[in-house]
């Protein structure tokens, strides 16, 4: 199953279609994809493949998305096989190399992110499967001398019912590969789906329960050295001088090298490298980063939140609306920096030769990483190959727009001159920046005599994630980073006077997308404020929202379903419920949570969740992703924060940055709204509404409004 363990076999797939005589379907996207950069012509690139049919009927699907837990190694093969009609039990998966044919259908690069893998591959992968099926049927029809229309494909075979002839895909692949591609194929109607919509076990599970799944950290090459880098204790700091005499003397240490990010120690394995790194003496020129401390930063942010910012949304007149309101409420919110803290710390294996570079890593951003590696190594992108291993969690961290971990590994490889595995310790990973930005928000809102919201002024303060990156040109408009205001500027409630403003201060802390990006903070702010307005109006928070949501809004369906399944309002003593609903990545999620206090600490007992992500490819995958997104969001809501003191990150490992543990896990019920709409995102949309649902439940229980994350800091006893 896990062919990732056999790089030579994978290489075959990319190099040749002929060696094994199998069928390779090269499928090119139309160049009309909406974000395709002008001048990109996929036909200029060597043809590549998504399907390989071996003579023994084993089928390999080459997946162009990174498997980081979200289930793409199952969902994308499901899309292909819905049309391919192969024997599902004979399907295996391999990761795609870097090539234009594997680009995201909406972007001129290979990238896994934005909860877009299924939605952006929905038509593409079914077409790939359909083209292959048509060719296999044609090959069989030609061989048998029967009309193509009399043949059909089923479970890995082409069948001519009239004559009873049948032949397996493995036997037909050779002939099919020689046929011209059909110009057009018809795709099945949803009512005819056999695989899409059926709960399907993950194809990667067997490898992940016997230790054979290969992550980046598991790659070993002959003569490879493990490298740990001592990086600046403050962001942007540079090495002034260093003394490595003691480190060099340690057995197993091969060398100590200065690289742009710090001092690299190369050794025979992690332990000597780590031990030697601990012996380095380094003086750092800290630069401006040494001045940063979290409390002062929040103070500055909250001051900014009182000033006019760039206008991200402007309906009516919020200032006049507030003046005219019957009652108003004003609130300030603080949301901290967060580390992604994937279970597998960052790591990169590099084998750099004068005219070639091979990289093994768990990356979400192959094209950007390849370009960065080529630039640094002085090679052409085609001379750099990236082997995408399984990712031990991604959550956005492994799609770094600056290619930070890959760039550094190339610099290390150039300095060391041997194959290297650059390993980040947990502490390196947690203190290495590229965090979800810290945010401060201010909302003033007002209701009229009937309790309806009539004015809403929301000011957001936080660093731009995309500024200075390749994404800026299409994600920043008029100075506004769309990811900074998503979920706030897109507030769905009918409020006549609505203003959303943004300040994007800069500092030395590198920031990055973190599961659900801007929504991870805006949902908390807007959904707790809506709850506050409902209470101000003396209304039930569910009925209040339904009153001010447009009648055709898809928010309504998930809100009503979650509430209905939750037993809203029926609770044992000492417990309370809270609700929140949010749209992100074109999907809608509502959570109803049930909480109590145990020794003054929040205990989340149960989450009842409803999701509308359009048509569902793998319902079990959808459930897994909602469960996962809830836990990820709960870890942040209850415990997660990265803080700075004099530029130093105060957290270092799971003892002081504690993710949710087994004993804290709530029961989770996931309900899926039936839909005939095209699929939308599922990896991230479950995260945003969990923090506000918890905060709203805590208010219902205690009367105390939680406006700062993480909630674990609050004294609720």
């Amino acid at each position: 199953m896990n062919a990732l363990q056999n790089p030579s076999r994978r290489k075959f797939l990319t190099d040749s279609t002929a060696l094994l005589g199998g069928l390779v379907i090269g499928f090119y996207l139309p160049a009309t994809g909406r974000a395709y950069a002008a001048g990109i012509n996929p036909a200029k690139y060597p043809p590549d493949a998504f399907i390989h049919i071996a003579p023994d009927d084993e089928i390999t699907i080459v997946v162009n998305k990174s498997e980081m837990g979200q289930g793409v190694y199952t969902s994308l093969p499901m899309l292909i096989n819905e049309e391919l009609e192969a024997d599902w039990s004979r399907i295996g998966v391999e990761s795609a190399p870097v090539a234009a044919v594997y680009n995201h259908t909406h972007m001129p690069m290979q990238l896994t992110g934005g909860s877009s893998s299924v939605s952006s591959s929905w038509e593409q992968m079914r077409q790939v499967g359909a083209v292959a099926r048509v060719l296999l049927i044609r090959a069989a029809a030609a061989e048998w001398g029967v009309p193509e229309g009399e043949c059909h494909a089923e479970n890995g075979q082409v069948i001519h019912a009239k004559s009873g002839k049948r032949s397996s895909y493995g036997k037909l692949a050779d002939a099919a590969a020689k046929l011209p591609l059909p110009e057009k194929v018809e795709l099945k109607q949803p009512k005819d789906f056999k695989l899409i919509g059926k709960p399907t076990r993950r194809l990667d599970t067997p490898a992940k329960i016997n230790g054979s799944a290969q992550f980046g950290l598991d790659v070993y090459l002959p003569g490879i050295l493990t490298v740990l880098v001592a990086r600046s204790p403050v962001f942007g700091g540079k090495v002034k001088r260093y003394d490595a005499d003691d480190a060099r003397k340690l057995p197993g240490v091969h060398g100590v090298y200065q690289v742009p990010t710090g001092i690299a120690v190369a050794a025979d394995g992690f332990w000597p490298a780590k031990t030697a790194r601990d012996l380095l003496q380094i003086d750092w020129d800290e630069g401006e980063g040494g001045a940063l401390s979290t409390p002062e930063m929040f103070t500055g942010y909250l001051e900014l939140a009182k000033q006019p910012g760039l206008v991200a949304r402007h309906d009516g007149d919020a200032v006049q609306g507030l003046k005219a309101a019957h009652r108003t409420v004003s609130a300030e919110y603080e949301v901290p920096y967060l580390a992604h803290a994937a279970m597998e710390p960052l790591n990169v294996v590099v084998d750099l030769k004068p005219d070639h570079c091979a990289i093994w890593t768990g990356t979400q951003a192959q094209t950007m990483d390849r370009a960065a590696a080529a630039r640094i190594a002085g090679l052409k992108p085609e001379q750099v190959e990236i082997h995408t291993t399984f990712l031990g969690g991604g959550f956005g961290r492994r799609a770094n727009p600056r290619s930070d971990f890959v760039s550094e590994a190339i610099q290390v490889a150039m300095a060391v001159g041997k194959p290297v595995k650059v390993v980040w310790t947990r502490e390196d990973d947690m203190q290495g920046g590229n965090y979800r930005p810290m945010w401060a928000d201010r909302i003033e809102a007002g209701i009229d005599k009937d309790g309806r919201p009539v004015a809403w002024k929301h000011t957001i303060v936080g660093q731009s994630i995309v500024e200075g990156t390749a994404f800026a040109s299409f994600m920043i408009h008029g100075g506004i980073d769309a990811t900074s205001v998503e979920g706030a500027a897109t507030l769905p409630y009918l409020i006549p006077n609505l203003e959303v403003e943004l300040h994007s201060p800069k500092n030395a802390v590198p920031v990055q997308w973190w599961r659900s990006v801007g929504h991870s903070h805006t949902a908390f702010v807007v959904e707790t404020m809506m709850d506050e307005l409902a209470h101000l109006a003396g209304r039930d928070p569910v009925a209040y929202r339904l009153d001010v949501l447009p009648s055709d809004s898809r928010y309504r369906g998930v809100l009503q379903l979650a509430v209905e399944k939750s037993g809203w309002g029926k609770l044992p003593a000492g417990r309370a419920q809270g609700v929140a609903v949010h749209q992100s990545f074109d999907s809608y999620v509502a959570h109803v949570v049930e909480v109590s206090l145990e020794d003054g600490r929040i205990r989340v007992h149960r989450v009842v969740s409803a999701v509308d992500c359009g048509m569902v490819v793998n319902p079990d995958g959808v459930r897994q992703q909602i469960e996962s997104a809830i836990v990820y969001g709960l870890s942040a809501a209850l415990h997660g924060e990265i803080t700075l003191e004099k530029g130093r990150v105060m957290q270092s490992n799971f003892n002081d940055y504690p993710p949710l543990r087994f004993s804290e896990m709530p029961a989770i019920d996931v309900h899926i709204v039936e839909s005939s709409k095209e699929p939308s995102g599922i990896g991230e949309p479950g995260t945003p509404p969990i923090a506000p649902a918890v905060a709203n439940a805590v208010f219902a229980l205690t009367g105390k409004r939680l406006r700062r994350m993480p909630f674990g800091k609050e004294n609720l006893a």
Partner: protein
Amino acid sequence: MISFYLNGKETRVDADPGTPLLWVLRDHLQMTGTKYGCGIAQCGACTVHLDGHAIRSCVTPLSMASGRKVATIEGLADTVLGKKVQSAWHEVDVPQCGYCQSGQIMAAAALLHEHPHPSDSQIADAMDGILCRCGTYNRIRAAIKVASGGEK
């Protein structure tokens, strides 16, 4: 030279006796199923069995394994119980990214060895030390119950 029994096979390693067992398994023996997650016994990704007990190999020096039995995920299918745990994990489709799962499975197997029908609190005690960022905890509980022959 230190020797121990790795998945039933006598194994000799030439490494500093203070080297954590985790890095002996990975860097010296290329047994990569056992994972590095934190290095300070906070996440449990490195969980292996030492004489049948679940331990954190990232803080266990090689010297402590001398002459003893070490079992890793790679050898789990050699035992009836191990097979049962893996099959339950497959049935419930537990893993997502999968990185923590070797540790989860080894911890669960040690629990089921000691308590063939563990209570909820015994499960929580045994599994609380193994972190999962993908949030597979409820499926882990369900799989342990399947493996113990109980209800999901």
